[in-house]
């Protein structure tokens, strides 16, 4: 039995069998998505050089959970800001300018900045986590460099047996080119 290099499995995974369709036109890609969904396909990947609401509408995916990260990050940032200022003030109480030791109004500034900082950082974290999670199969699906330029693409994983059917579906929707991978 041949030993499998685990690193190779991560960095050079075996390609997922399927079809890669290249579209020159946005409405053709939207059309194809509609047809694929009608045909019961769910886990196809759509490539586009720009985010287009037409694609989003046709895919009809749930709202990204990134917003929860932002919310939690923001609230915890605010809390950390409050803790930082108040704890540090009372840890070694020093009176300045006749002001109370824990003086809330100036600390609001720190709390606000910490809200934004932690909110932003956790948003990034959220995007990263979610995108990575979504990208766990990314290396294995076929891709074409033109997708970041001016072409739209759809990759449909399929057994070689069903490939022909999918291909005709894609071509019917207006794919300029369909490749098997």
């Amino acid at each position, binding site marked *: 039995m041949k030993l499998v290099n685990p690193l190779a499995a991560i960095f050079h995974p075996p390609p997922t069998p399927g079809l890669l369709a290249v579209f020159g036109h946005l409405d053709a890609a939207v059309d194809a998505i509609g047809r694929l969904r009608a045909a019961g396909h769910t886990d196809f990947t759509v490539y586009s050089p720009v985010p287009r609401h037409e694609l989003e509408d046709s895919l009809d995916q749930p709202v990204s959970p990134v917003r929860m990260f932002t919310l939690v990050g923001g609230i915890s940032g605010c809390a950390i800001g409050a803790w930082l200022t108040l704890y540090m003030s*009372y840890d*070694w*109480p*020093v*009176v*300045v*300018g*006749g*002001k*109370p*030791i*824990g003086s809330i109004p100036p600390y609001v500034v720190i709390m606000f900045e910490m809200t934004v900082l932690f909110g932003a950082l956790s948003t990034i974290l959220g995007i990263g986590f979610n995108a990575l999670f979504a990208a766990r199969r990314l290396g294995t699906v076929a891709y074409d460099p033109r997708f970041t330029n001016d072409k739209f693409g759809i990759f449909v994983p399929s057994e070689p047996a069903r490939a022909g059917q999918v291909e005709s579906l894609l071509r019917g929707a207006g794919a300029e080119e369909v490749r098997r991978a």
Partner: protein
Amino acid sequence: MDRRRFLRVLGATGGGAAALTGCGIGPEPTEQLVPYLVPPENQVPGIATYYATTCRECAAGCGLHAKVREGRVIKLEGNPESPVNQGRLCARGQAALQGLYNPDRVTDPMARSANGQWRKLSWDEGLGRLQAKVKEARGKGIAFVTGLESGSFGDLVDAWTRQVGGRHVTYEPFAFEALRAGNRIAFGTSAIPWYDFANARYIVSFGADFMETWLSPVGYQNSFTRAHAFTGGRDASMAKFVYVGPRLALTGMSADEWIAAAPGTEGVLALAMAHVIVARRLAPLPADVGRVRAALDAHAPERVAAAIGIEAKVITRLAREFAASRGGLAVAGGIAAQYPNGAEIVAAVNILNYVAGQVGKTVQFGPNHALAGAGSFQDLTDLTGDLSAGRVALLLVHGANPAHSLPAAFSQALGHAAYKVSFSSYLDETAAASDLVLPDLHPLEQWNDSQPRSGVHALQQPVMSPVFPNTMHAGDVLLRLAGRPGTFKDYLQGRWQELHRRYGRGRSFEEFWDDALQHGGVYTNVPLQTVRLALDVTRAPALTGDKAAPGWQASPDQPLLLVYPSLALHDGRGANKPWLQELPDPVSKITWHGWVEVHPETAAKWQVANGDVLLLRSGHGALRAPVWITPGVRPDVLAVPTGQGHKAYGRYAKDRSFNAFELLSDAPTAYGGRAFAVSVAVAKTGDHRRLATLEGDAREQGRGVIEVLPLSRAQQLKPGAHAFQERETPPYADRALADWAEAQHDAASLGDYAHPHPRWGMAIDLAKCTGCSACVTACYAENNLATVGEELVVRRRQMSWLRIERYYTGGEAGRPVGAVVTPMLCQQCGNAPCEPVCPVYAAYHTADGLNGQVYNRCVGTRYCANNCPYKVRYFNWYNYAEQGGEWESWPDPLNMLLNPDVTVREKGVMEKCTFCVQRIRGAQNRARLEDRNVQDGDITPACAQACPSEAIVFGDLRDTSSRVAALARDPRGYHVLAALNTQPAITYLAKVVHGAVVEG
């Protein structure tokens, strides 16, 4: 500081030093500890010892307490037991330390070799050489020039010069010959009396700058304040002070009225006042008044008013006020005693005192000033003549620098003396021109005594081992020259045997001596002498009535130039002390260089601005001086200070600005003195220099920094009244603020703030403050303030934690010109604006109400300084403590005067007044050791301690029985910029003036 260097100094003198408290903010501590071989008596490391001695910076002879830590003297304070200065000390006296530790001191005997270079000698060699020269010069003329020496050293010099057939000339550039001559004219005695300012009810100063350089400035300022201070509810109202003179000097700034009489007519004014008193019998006239009646008749106010330049009715009013006060005191001095007719002016003022019946009351002959024994300018010019004629084979100079104050004649004459020996500790002009320098000990290192005035026998004792061990007491040198046994101390004690006989009161000499040392001397009362008008009193030209306006005549293109002694540098002897160079002149606020005072009208006429350099040319010399425009001088008069323009003397003095003596005539006046007024031709040079001044704006502009009350209003103030509204807020807002403050206090009540604490506070009575700036130097000495030099003062980088602000009032639209002064230092605000803005809590509030500044925590954002409305925070722009650095402030051995209780600040650190927190903590430590609380009076900050007017009182504001708390409740009290609600801990008590208040 470099401790090893310090140890070497002490080690060489047989001592050692225990663990020195470190100076310097850096973390590097001492690496080595060198113990004493034998612990010195009375000295505990870490605890200061005080030795009583006498100040020799001027002829006043104030008593000193020298504070000694670990064998080195670190501060000079006034000796409270001395009747001369009542425990107070002026800037010059305190700066004596910088003479002691001066980096330009002559460390070894030196002789000039053939090629003109200095060569170090051993003492035996030096003394041998001198011995040989004395032998050689016997009979060919030996002259010994000293400063005023009223004690044993002077006698020794006298004795020695007699022995070798020479003569002893004492020379003081400001020797008040006119006072002696004027007293001789009026009373037939050349004694200089003691003036009882404290009991005077009306003081008229005819030019006498008795707060600056006149006779005994500290003592007279102190007693002047007693008369002139305002105390609510006192029976007698405060004395009125009238200043007569062409220039508003520091003394004049305290006056209630300034009369800028035409120069030279001061005596005429005095006689006119005397005329009014006599003619209208305003006072019980003395029997012999008839002797002057005719002379007085020639000086009726109407006849002389025009010459003086004031209205006759003003003269009459002054005379009435003077006589009615039943305690008038008229003093003449300063420039009035330095005109060619100075003696007559003094005589005229004497007559005024006499006809008002004040001689014997406020003018007391008996406790006479020692200055009467000083030589005259005539003596020196005679010597100069002899020198030039080659009649002096050996010239010895000690404690005088005639080559600076007589730059042309004496310097030239010096060249004709065969051999010149200097005992100077510094290479001043005279020493630099000598052939042999035998460096004397500094007065703080030597035994001596003096008699500043009759009845005061002041002792000088060495307060530390010599900084430079290879220097020798000039007295010891003379004793060895004379072949007499013993040291100068023995000689001194021998002379004190006589005092012991008189005042010993049955004690052994040892007891008497120790007692005298502890108290700084022996102080006795001297019976008053009665004087009568001299028989030939009217023979003086001014009194004949022939010349109504003697002296000098105004001409537009030849204005009169007055040369006056600088308060800080005096005749120039202070010029190599950075504290004095950096001390802003109390009038002009200029540091490090000279200036010429020009009236605004004259400046407008000549089209010159501040800093424009003028060429002033008199018949005797010329100099270039930058203009300082001031309303405090008559339009037809210019004035320049002495002190600068040294050609030698040391790094701080050399080649700095101009030597005002160069303009003066070398010929003595009729009374043997020197004329300090001279006509000059003025030319613009087109050059400009930025004045190294601390003054931003000369006008206070109604900012409420200085409040002034007319006497009539101040007298009406009842206890509990508030003359000055605290805040520009309605009462409800005041209440809300108070409630808020209460709530904040509660909110802060944890940790160090939870317990009741003192709140340190200060009260500054502006009715007493004269602006003399003694406090400024005291602060420099106590708190290790760096001196930054002229260039940095120009860029306003001075470090003066305490500055004296001087604002002019009046001047436009015929309003009388005056000046108001205030000390401005950290107000230790309760709600300090500087504190909350510091990002690292380096500025914070201590539990005892101070505005703490933690130097080692400071990162130097300088936000606090921006936010300080009083602008009393100072930044270390450079490393002033860096050894050998470009901005080094304490070159070796000047660093030995650093106070080990105060951190020397590093570059990049903010610093400010802390109410001398080291003294507060020290008092608290002592109180704790003695299981008691700190009591009122235990703590005196350096400024309050030095203040000759006793204007500053420090204490706990929460202790309602403390002096400061009582003063803070005074109805005259106000807070500077109170509208900002900073709640300062310093209460200023408004200045009180006779007559109307003139706005700035």
